[in-house]
């Protein structure tokens, strides 16, 4: 109830113009939204590419963080980034221990957008192969160590 009401309001708000580079892909219900994001400056890693983010909301949203991952869909790829595993899982403290209920879908999209914008390394996180093979799908089960403050 709580989560639905708040998401209704957010949906109403993002019908108004969103920040550049962020758009709604689909919002079929109040437990799963898809957003498209795009890096706007001419970073050669991400130029002219659109990426799709999948938001999964639990009943405890916004007290609990949504599960946010990149997904492969409609020809969208997983962006190259030292904090994004090739199965789309994002290692970002804002989505884990540093989540605050004041954040919303728009602010999360903007955080991820700026995380991509500032990146220059064309690489995956260390241990990507092992991580993907181990088959974790839900970021909730992972205890990331947020050791890198440079990106």
């Amino acid at each position: 109830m709580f989560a639905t009401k708040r998401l209704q309001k957010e949906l109403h708000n993002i019908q108004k113009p969103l920040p550049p580079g962020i758009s709604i892909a689909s919002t079929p219900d109040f437990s799963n939204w898809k957003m498209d994001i795009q890096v706007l400056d001419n970073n050669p890693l991400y130029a002219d590419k659109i990426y799709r983010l999948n938001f999964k909301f639990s009943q405890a949203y916004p007290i609990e963080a949504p599960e946010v991952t990149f997904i492969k869909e409609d020809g969208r790829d997983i962006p190259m980034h030292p904090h994004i595993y090739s199965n789309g899982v994002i290692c970002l403290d804002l989505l884990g221990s540093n989540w605050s209920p004041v954040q919303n879908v728009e602010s999360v999209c903007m955080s991820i957008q700026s995380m991509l914008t500032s990146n220059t390394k064309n690489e995956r996180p260390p241990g990507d192969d092992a991580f993907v093979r181990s088959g974790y799908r839900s970021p909730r089960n992972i205890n990331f160590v947020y050791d890198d403050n440079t990106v």
Partner: protein
Amino acid sequence: MAPSRSSRNSLQSVDLRALDYLTVPSANLLCPICHSPLITPVQTRCLHTFCSACISLSLDRSLSCPVDRKPLSHDDVTPAPIMIANLVNDLPVLCPNRERGCTASCARWLVESHVREDCEYASVKCAKEGCDGMVERREAEGECVHEEVQCEYCEGSVKKVDLESHNRECPKLSSECPHCLQAFANPELAAHMAECPEEIVECSASCYGCSYTSRRSDIESHTSTCHFVALSPVLQLHAERIATLELENKAIRQKLDLLVPPRPLPTPTSSTVTTTASNPMSASSQVSSTTTAGRDMTSEMQDYTFHLYSEYEQLRSDVERLNAQIRELDVKQDMARINEGLRYNDEMTGVRAAINGLRMQLHWLLANRREAGTSSPATSGNAGRAVAGGSANGGEIRRMSDSARQVVKL
């Protein structure tokens, strides 16, 4: 009223969080966590305001302020100023029974008593003795609808209140499809109606202007040849684009209204005066103002004059502003000049005093020299003796030695 008022009170509880508001509340009154107007507002040590329930849920998960992430404990949360609570409690809300038909709206702090005592659509206990059923207040006066009655077709027992919906589904009842006139058992009727081949349906592109209608069985052949259907993807795309453009336009217009205040309209008399005065063309157009074209022209001219007038007003205010600035500058400059003059005056008096002093000394020296010249040249030897001789002639000695020092200085 047969039963006492208290027994007719509704037990329906009101969830304040689920209420809908009559107006869009100010963003300042929204809780940053649930994005709804604050309920039981509390404030933190870092002076942020939240709903009491929201912040305690958030603190259960992480002991920091959700807004600025400063460390925060449950003890750092105190009730917000009463004024804030009053502001949110006064917001007008819609009755929670709106979906059942209640059109009432009232201040939020009154909504609970509205549902408990007044709302015609709130559920109250059935008036019949021993019946546990619930009924809407406006129907409570009538007979009890929770008695079991027997369906006259399928012989099952049904509550009176459910009879209507039962009749629609009773397997023993059948009704006629209004289109093909065949009889169907009630549970199957809805499924049949959705695909009855005899029903008259519209072309699928009717919203784009195709007026063709036919029986459902024949519509297929039309769809394959209908130009509107062929065009409909393009048309739909256009419609969507127009909708987004309209939305954008609306947003831009709102922004514009914010940036540019509405143009001040001059009074009608002054506007006609300016029309004739500023633009001789408009005189002729006013003559022909009996025709609609003439009237259009006049209004156009008037628009133009309004424009000129507003521009003139703007220029006048500019000139006024500049005048004021010049005056201010004048005053400033005067002040500066006076200040400087004063300073120079002071300096002059200082210099004058110094010169006076010098002149005095010069006079004294000259007098001294003259005296020395007229008396014997042995005076200087005298003086030296007097200094060595002690206090025989103190005043004079002092002056003599003074003068000696002065001479050295000069």
